[in-house]
């Protein structure tokens, strides 16, 4: 049971040691230039490959989950975004899904109460945790553009200003925190990852379904956030040198400046591993959500015909075969038939006809 997260934890610790030892051995070029480039390339190519691979699979049927009243008679209120009938309504449904995790918001928790009554209460923590995690991560990513752009664009500065809205400064000669200004996103990211990890450990059902590949990204991201926070607030590094390195990468003039601490290389290595791991993992839900056939299709399935690219003819039991088998019985009860049996001479044909009724007994 514990093996699943222990292995992930040990893996991340090993990754940490690799980066640490590599830096100590003077392999800055490897960890600061070669691995990041390779990881980015792998990320982009891998991502495109996975999505193209999905796109090569057909969408034979239109099978959206209809989560609300369909569009029918005019006096029934159509649930436009839960049962979208047009492409634009689908766009809104998808946007709500991707930007607000709408389906997750519906989450309930089942409880079996005294006296055998089942209850389903709103369970909002997973939604809050997931939203906090993803938006904090996004804010952190955007903020990091300050290391990858020169001059730093206005929207990055805007995000920085919003992110550092709360000023917390704890300044004692022995312990200092909060200079430079605290970015909430980093802290939220760390807490959200911790929450997502802890619920995997402490919610029995979730623990039961969790795999090593569920814990690994959490540990890795925890490592990334932690090293980032350490670098910013505790074990300071020379930021301008760090940016000199990152700018070197994105302007294709890679350099290894002096004075960038080991912790920076560990941080960068963790990020590289995450990028390289991304396309081969469940993290691809980033791309997959866009291609989910239960969400991204219109529900006007009776209004517009959907074409199945591999639709092939199948053997069917035709009316003629049916009538041939049951003609006499049909006539008996006055059902109209296509072919009236010829009055007398048909008798010779009778044995041939008998073959089919032989199967009759099987069915009852």
């Amino acid at each position, binding site marked *: 049971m514990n093996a699943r997260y222990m292995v992930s934890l040990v893996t991340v610790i090993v990754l940490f040691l690799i980066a640490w030892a590599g830096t100590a051995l003077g392999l800055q070029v490897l960890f600061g230039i070669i691995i990041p480039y390779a990881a980015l390339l792998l990320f982009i190519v891998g991502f495109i490959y996975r999505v193209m691979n999905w796109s090569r699979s057909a969408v034979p049927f239109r099978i959206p989950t209809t989560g609300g009243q369909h569009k029918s008679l005019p006096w029934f209120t159509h649930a436009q975004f839960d049962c979208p009938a047009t492409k634009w309504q689908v766009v809104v449904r998808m946007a709500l899904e991707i930007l607000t995790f709408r389906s997750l918001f519906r989450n309930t928790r089942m409880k079996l109460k005294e006296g055998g009554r089942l209850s389903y209460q709103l369970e909002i923590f997973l939604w809050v945790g997931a939203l906090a995690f993803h938006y904090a991560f996004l804010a952190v990513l955007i903020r990091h553009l300050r290391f990858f*752009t020169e001059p730093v664009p206005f929207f990055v*500065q805007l995000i920085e200003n919003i992110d550092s809205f709360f000023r917390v400064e704890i*300044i004692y000669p022995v312990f200092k925190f909060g200079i430079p200004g605290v970015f909430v996103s980093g802290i939220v990211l760390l807490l959200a990852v911790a929450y997502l990890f802890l619920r995997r450990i402490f919610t029995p059902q979730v623990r039961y379904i969790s795999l090593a590949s569920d814990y690994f990204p959490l540990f890795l991201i925890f490592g990334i956030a932690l090293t980032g926070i350490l670098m910013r607030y505790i074990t300071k590094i020379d930021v*301008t040198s760090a940016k000199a390195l990152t*700018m070197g990468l994105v302007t294709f003039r890679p350099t290894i400046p002096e004075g960038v601490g080991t912790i920076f290389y560990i941080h960068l290595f963790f990020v590289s591993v995450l990028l390289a791991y991304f396309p081969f993992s469940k993290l691809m839900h980033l791309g997959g959500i866009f291609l989910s056939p239960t969400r991204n299709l219109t529900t006007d399935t009776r209004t517009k015909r959907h074409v199945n690219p591999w639709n092939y003819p199948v053997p069917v039991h035709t009316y003629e075969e049916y009538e041939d088998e049951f003609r006499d019985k049909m006539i008996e009860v006055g059902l109209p038939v296509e072919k009236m049996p010829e009055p007398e001479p048909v008798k010779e044909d009778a044995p041939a006809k008998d073959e089919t009724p032989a199967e009759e007994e099987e069915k009852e």
Partner: protein
Amino acid sequence: MSEKKLIILGLIIFVVIVTFPLWYNRGKAAPAPERILTDKAKAAKVCVRSTDYMKAEHMQLLDLWRDSVVRQGTRIYVSPSGKEYNMSLSNRCLDCHSNKAEFCDRCHNYASVRPYCWDCHIDNPKETS
């Protein structure tokens, strides 16, 4: 638009976003700004702490100084080397580093940090532009 085209369009948008830093900078070199010292600073040879320490942690040192001066009224800073300094941004730091635009601002801009030192210390008489 056919579904295939939509997927490809989506992927193009993805690549454009992910590679933003690569095309935004147009490959223009952006090395770290050089440290420019005034003659006075050069002559002094050493700062209150080592250069490496100052690069990474000057903001915290200044904050400590501020607390010490404003809240405790203590103005004397004893460096690890035993030397005593008067704790003052305007009168101590900027005495040597009087070239704020070159010495302070260039790196701050480069790293996109906007320290609030200058919210108060704006009319520093010693500053020369």
